[in-house]
């Protein structure tokens, strides 16, 4: 099981928001897939899957998130 967290490169200080999940809860993903688009104060960044497996989404789109926050799991 692998945690998917917001990396510091995407959000360092303050909050951001996942603007859209590109995969759905329960879908199979591969390491390297772009899972979601995350907006910080300046731009939109890509959240990349660190592993392959089944995606469990823990935080919906349009909810504020912070650096290092756990937003999904891959099992």
């Amino acid at each position: 099981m692998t945690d998917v967290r917001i990396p510091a490169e995407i959000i360092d200080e303050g909050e951001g928001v996942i603007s859209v999940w590109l995969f759905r809860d329960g879908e199979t993903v591969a390491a390297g897939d772009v899972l979601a688009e995350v907006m910080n104060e300046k731009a939109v960044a890509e959240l990349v899957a660190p592993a392959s497996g089944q995606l469990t989404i823990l935080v919906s789109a349009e909810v504020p998130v912070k650096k290092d926050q756990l937003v999904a799991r891959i099992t």
Partner: protein
Amino acid sequence: MNVSASTSRVADAKHTESTAQGVDAVPRRRLTIAKAISEALTQEMDRDPRVLVMGEDIGRLGGVFGTTQGLLARFGPERVRDTPISETAFIGAAVGLAAAGMRPVVELMFVDFFGVCMDAIYNLAAKQSYFSGGRVACPMVLMTSVGGGYGDAGQHSQCLYASFAHLPGLKVVIPSNSHDAKGLMIAAIRDPNPVVFMYHKALQGMGWLGTVQRSIVPVSDSDYVVPIGKATTVREGRDVTVVSWGLGVHQAVECADILMKEGIDVEVLDLRTLAPLDRDAILQSVQKTGRIVVVDDDYRSCGLAAEIIASVCESGRVALRAPPCRVTFPDIPVPFAPQMERPLLPSAVKLAEAVRAQFVSQP
């Protein structure tokens, strides 16, 4: 959230189309429509130095609706131009650039703004080929956002499909998903005619507008074309044809899911192109099912739904088993308050009611 079977049918259909063009097998990555449009523009600008992009906020910002992300950094300000708020001038300029052999892509930020620049669109761009006896083409793309449902009120929520599809000399397209968005944009850029490329705000995948998950599908990174003028069958069915485009496609698919459980098998058509209308595809489907419901989030009267139904009725090729039906927005300016706007917009639920009514015996 479960992956709906119909979603994978949409994705499979897209994959089949891509494969048919000799493209790589099942692409992995998914794009939003906004990203797909940006990618189409990037690839065409790489391939063809005549392509340039201009409009308000399309440079540094990457477009208010994300259609031009990454272009300024890659191609520079000569080919990616943030313009003043001067639609008549820069859309007129696009007509002149096209006459001179360039391939401009211009963004009209909201279709509602067409009032300040319509002459350049329908009297210049649309008639350049005609007035020159075919000697001077107008290979330009006018991309523009359409649609409401998010409280932007009467001057920022309109669709106006019929207003543009009505006018000779223009092609009008609208994708319902990112695969089609990329392919239609590439087709539009390569078409020697003026193409109005509409993108529905509810489908862009911009965080601040919400999105429809079904519009996010796998997109090949090759340069493929989705042909202009060809509808596609998103879901095959026996009992009734629902004709849709843009956001309406997703409402139709959701409606079909609801009705499957009630034993009604709905065929869903995604027009993809509004002008020229793929009347053959519509007729073929309605000949099979004998029933037609059209979902159209534009104003009701004199709308595209009316044109589709008229085309079916006058064809003499179909014996309808129930009166044709259209589910549309009413003939009123789009109201601001969500309590007013939302119930008036077409929805999967309303569409399901309309489809059920097709099966009530006629007196």
